[in-house]
C-alpha cells in the first residue's frame, strides 16, 4: 500500500471526528460562529494538505525547493501522532473552556445563595 494512501487512511477518521466535534460544539452553543469557522477551516486545511501531500512534495522537489527524502513509514507515524495530539489538545481546550465557565458561574451563584442565607441568619 502506498504510504501516502496510508497517511490519509490513518488520519481521515481523526479529522472527521475533529470536524464533527466542531460542528456539534457550535450547534450546542459552546462556541461562536467565528471560532466554528476557524476550527472547520483549520481541519479542512490539514485534510487538504494530507490528500495533496504527494503532488505538493513532487512540486517542491522538482523546483529545488526541498531536498528531503520521500515519505517514510516513520514519517507517516509521526504525522499521525502530531495530528492525534492536535485533536486531543483541541478537544481538551474546548472542554476546559466550557468547564471553567461553568465552575465560575456555579461559584458565583453558590456564593450569592449562601450569602443570602448567612445574612438572614445574622439579622435574626
Amino acid at each position, binding site marked *: 500500500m502506498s504510504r501516502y494512501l496510508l497517511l490519509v487512511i490513518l488520519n481521515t477518521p481523526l479529522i472527521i471526528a475533529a470536524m464533527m466535534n466542531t460542528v456539534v460544539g457550535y450547534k450546542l452553543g459552546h462556541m461562536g460562529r467565528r471560532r466554528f469557522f*476557524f476550527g472547520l477551516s483549520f481541519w479542512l486545511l490539514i485534510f487538504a494538505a494530507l490528500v495533496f501531500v504527494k503532488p505538493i512534495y513532487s512540486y517542491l522537489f522538482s523546483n529545488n525547493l526541498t531536498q528531503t527524502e520521500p515519505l517514510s513509514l516513520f514519517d507517516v507515524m509521526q504525522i499521525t501522532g502530531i495530528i492525534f495530539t492536535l485533536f486531543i489538545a483541541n478537544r481538551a481546550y474546548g472542554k476546559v473552556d466550557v468547564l471553567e465557565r461553568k465552575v465560575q458561574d456555579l461559584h458565583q451563584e453558590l*456564593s*450569592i445563595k449562601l450569602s443570602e442565607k448567612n445574612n438572614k441568619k445574622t439579622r435574626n
Partner: protein
Amino acid sequence: MVGRVITDLKNVFAKSGYDYQIILVDDGSKDETAVIGQKAGVHVISHILNIGSGGATATGLSYAQAKGFDIAATLDGDGQHSAADVLKGIKLLDEKGGDLLIGSRLIDTQGMSRVKQLGNKGLTFVTFSLFGVKITDSQSGLRIFSRKALNELKWKTAGYEFCSEMLWRAKQLGLDIREFPIRAIYTDYSMAKGQNNWNGFNIVKSLLRRRIMELFGE
C-alpha cells in the same frame, strides 16, 4: 480598613436621599473581612475560593442585577476611593446619563506617585492600543453602572485584567462609556494592597492573549 470604608459609605449615603444597599464581596480572604462586614450590617457575599478582583466584581454586580438595582457602583476595599466620589459618580450617571462611568485618578494626579502614574498610564495605553477604548484611567476600580450595563456587561477574565476587558466588552456592546475625575487616597495600607507595576506585565500578557484568542473566535 474595610470597616472604615463601610462607615464612610454609610455616613455619606444616609444623607444622599438614595435608597441604597452596601454589598461586600469577600474574595476568599483569610482575614476578618467577612466578619467586619457582617458586624457593620452590610450584605456580605463570601467566595469559597479566591478568584480574583474580576471574579469578585462580577459576583457583586450579578447580585445587584438579580436584585434589580437601577445603579450599581464598585470601589476598592483598600480605602483609596472616597465615599463622596462614589456619590458624585452616582449623581452624575443619574442626572446626565451614560451606561458606564469611570472614576479617573489620572485627570488630577495629585497624591499619586510617579511610579503609579506610569503604571496606570502604561496600562491605559495598552487598553487603547488593543481595544481602541479611549479613556484616561483604564484601571480604576471606582465604576458606576447603569441598569443596562448591569444586564448586558459580562467579561471572561477573573484577575486585575478585567478592568481593561470590561471596557472592551462595553465598547463592543455599544455602551456609553464616560469618566469623571476622582482623587485617590493613598495610605501605607492601600499602597501595600494595590497591585504593583510588575503585575502590569501579567495583565498585558493576559490581555494580549485574550485579544489574539478573540481573533480566532474565542
